[in-house]
């Protein structure tokens, strides 16, 4: 920040990028998701315009937090009318849950697509549909032991693949 105040554009660019990430996290937990990016931009602009009000003897976090908080309170004051309509609020809640379920389902399908069709079906039956290994074996013509072995191997494969992707 000190370098930025002196005119170092590269340092400033990096600083703004870092601030954007932190602001997104701060606002993301507190305001409607649709409004987050707009408020991030508005806050960055304010910080830029008023960068001379940062006192080099105080911690930068105090300055950043004070502005972010001020902008958030201002945002609530401006959008108050939207928040008082109860129907809209409920719709937003349901929409959020629907999206999350849809995302979860998509993730599971992506994972399962790594397996051959037969094993995929076994996993779906035992893990998602709640069948016992005996019942799953009955529908596929396999012994209960065979089902257990295949499910166990499939889980190992998925875990190996998943951690591989994670790193």
């Amino acid at each position, binding site marked *: 920040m000190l370098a930025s*105040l002196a005119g170092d554009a590269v340092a*400033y660019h990096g600083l*703004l990028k870092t601030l954007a990430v932190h602001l997104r996290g701060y606002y993301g937990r507190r305001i409607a998701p649709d409004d987050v990016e707009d408020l*991030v931009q508005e806050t*960055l602009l304010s910080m830029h315009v*008023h960068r001379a*009000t*940062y006192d*080099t003897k105080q911690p930068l976090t105090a300055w950043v937090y004070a502005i972010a908080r001020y902008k958030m309170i201002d945002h609530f004051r401006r959008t108050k009318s939207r928040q008082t309509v109860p129907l809209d609020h409920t719709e937003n809640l349901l929409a959020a849950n629907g999206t999350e379920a849809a995302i979860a389902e998509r993730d599971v399908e992506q994972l399962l697509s790594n397996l051959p069709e037969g094993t995929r079906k076994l996993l779906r039956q035992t893990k998602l549909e709640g069948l016992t290994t005996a019942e799953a074996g009955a529908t596929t013509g396999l012994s209960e032991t065979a089902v257990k072995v295949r499910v166990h191997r499939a889980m190992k494969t998925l875990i190996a693949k998943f951690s591989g992707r994670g790193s």
Partner: protein
Amino acid sequence: MKKTDALIDSLSSNLEPVSRAFVALRLAGGVAAGAAAAVIMMLVLLNLRPDLGFAVGTAIFWIKLAYTLATAVTGFWTVERLARPGASAGAQGMLECLPLVAMVSLATITLFLAPAGARRGMILGHSAVACPWLIVMLSLPILAGGIWAMRGLAPVRPIAAGVGVGVLAGSAAAAIYGFHCDESAAPFVAIFYTLGIAASGLLGAAIGRVGLRW
């Protein structure tokens, strides 16, 4: 997020360096311009007290000036803090109260030591009703200058900032008023000069509430 990236790129291009004294300089500019206007108002609308030559030899003249100027100077630095997000202005604010404490103490002692018959005159003087209003009147251009300055800064507590600017303007105005006013009793100053300063503070709060949002 692309829009944000574009914004960041644009903000960091042509980056102008900023002075560390930016806040103080901007504030001083606004207040000085307002104070110059207040001095002219005092000379034109009121008048320089004709016995000024005699007055500068009296203690009370300097006591008045010390009280009002000390409040204005400490008030300036309080407002400088209030203009910065995340900066605490509490310590500076307490410092700003010290001249008032000193003035009230002096007034109390003076009243106590005076003969009973003289006390009413020492409190009310001859311009009690007009005095606070005249101080507020003189504070208006200084208030305008201070608010202008604050609008280019970042007060995260707009009402507190407004009070700060109001008290700064009021005390500067009271200092200027002392060159017109010929009241010479400490109790009068402690009450009615202070009322004028406080009224300016309230006016500043009202303006700050709507005018200092950003």
